[in-house]
């Protein structure tokens, strides 16, 4: 459409296709929607709703961060367990010396796997893996194996299925 206003030939500026043709509709449509009622928010909320939001969200965040405490994390319990194990070891050794009924056996590589070691026990008890977790005690592995092999209940269980 040629007219005496500036056009792309004189200015070098261009417009998208149908830009002018579509102008009336675009403007009229927008005007139609510029209606106070239409622009009003038709949604409402319960009284006092917004005042409660912070508390509700914070409550949920705290709930979603449960602290899982393994019983073995408790230092007191660890020390108590070590002491109990040592006491039992001493007591059992004393019993062995006064009682020839239970034959001590040297724990070989074969039947080591028959015993739950304390680390396997730990894995069974915790609900999360504990990285870098170690049990601090003064018992050497040998002492522990020895204790376990002398403890009559466990050896009885072992010997049930153990073929000599």
């Amino acid at each position: 459409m040629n007219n005496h206003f500036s056009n792309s030939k004189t200015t070098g500026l261009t417009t998208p296709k149908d830009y002018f043709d579509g102008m009336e509709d675009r403007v009229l449509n927008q005007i139609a929607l510029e209606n106070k009622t239409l622009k009003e928010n038709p949604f409402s909320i319960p009284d006092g709703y917004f005042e409660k939001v912070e508390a509700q969200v914070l409550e949920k965040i705290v709930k979603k961060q449960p602290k899982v405490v393994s019983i073995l994390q408790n230092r007191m319990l660890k020390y108590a367990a070590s002491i109990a194990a040592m006491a039992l070891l001493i007591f059992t050794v004393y019993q062995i010396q006064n009682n020839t009924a239970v034959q001590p056996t040297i724990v070989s590589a074969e039947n080591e796997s028959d015993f739950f070691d304390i680390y396997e026990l730990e894995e069974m008890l915790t609900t999360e893996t504990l990285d870098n977790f170690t049990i601090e005690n003064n018992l050497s592995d040998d002492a522990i194996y020895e204790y376990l092999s002398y403890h009559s209940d466990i050896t009885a269980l072992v010997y049930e299925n153990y073929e000599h």
Partner: protein
Amino acid sequence: MQNEEQLIAGLQSAEKKNEAFKQLISQYKERLYWHIRKMVLNHDDADDVLQNTFIKVFRHMDNFKEESKLYSWLYRIATNEAITFLNSKAKQNNTTLEKIKDESINNLTADVYFEGDEIQLKLQKAIATLPEKQQLVFNMKYFDDLTYEELSEILETSTGALKSSYHLAVKKITTYLSED
């Protein structure tokens, strides 16, 4: 009311995180709520999505790279949570997203928290006929009065594309409204 910089600094510090987060909720809860509400239509659903949004924000605070404005980031999370919510509702009811939205629209008249008159209800129905992204553009431009630049940051779309989208939406809506 803290400015955005102070708020972000607080959120990314270990000691101030919780207090800053509480501030963030206070500052943005209404805007985000209404944005979500327009998408899910129902108050209870909007409440769920709003809370999920803030929980997500809390968990991913360290992922906020400050390449965009805080508000854009929040808006984007809210939008995604609303869409996820609707999709999951559709899946649970073994139906489609469109049917879920249709159902929500049809429930509006009975909804105690919808106070619109006939023409406002018709407008909601008209908006529901639009493709999802167009609905977003229309709602944010028409009701929230965001500029195309703000929309561009939130929706990560060029202003040109957004303008086309908006004009198309307006055209469809006015046609719908003028029909019986």
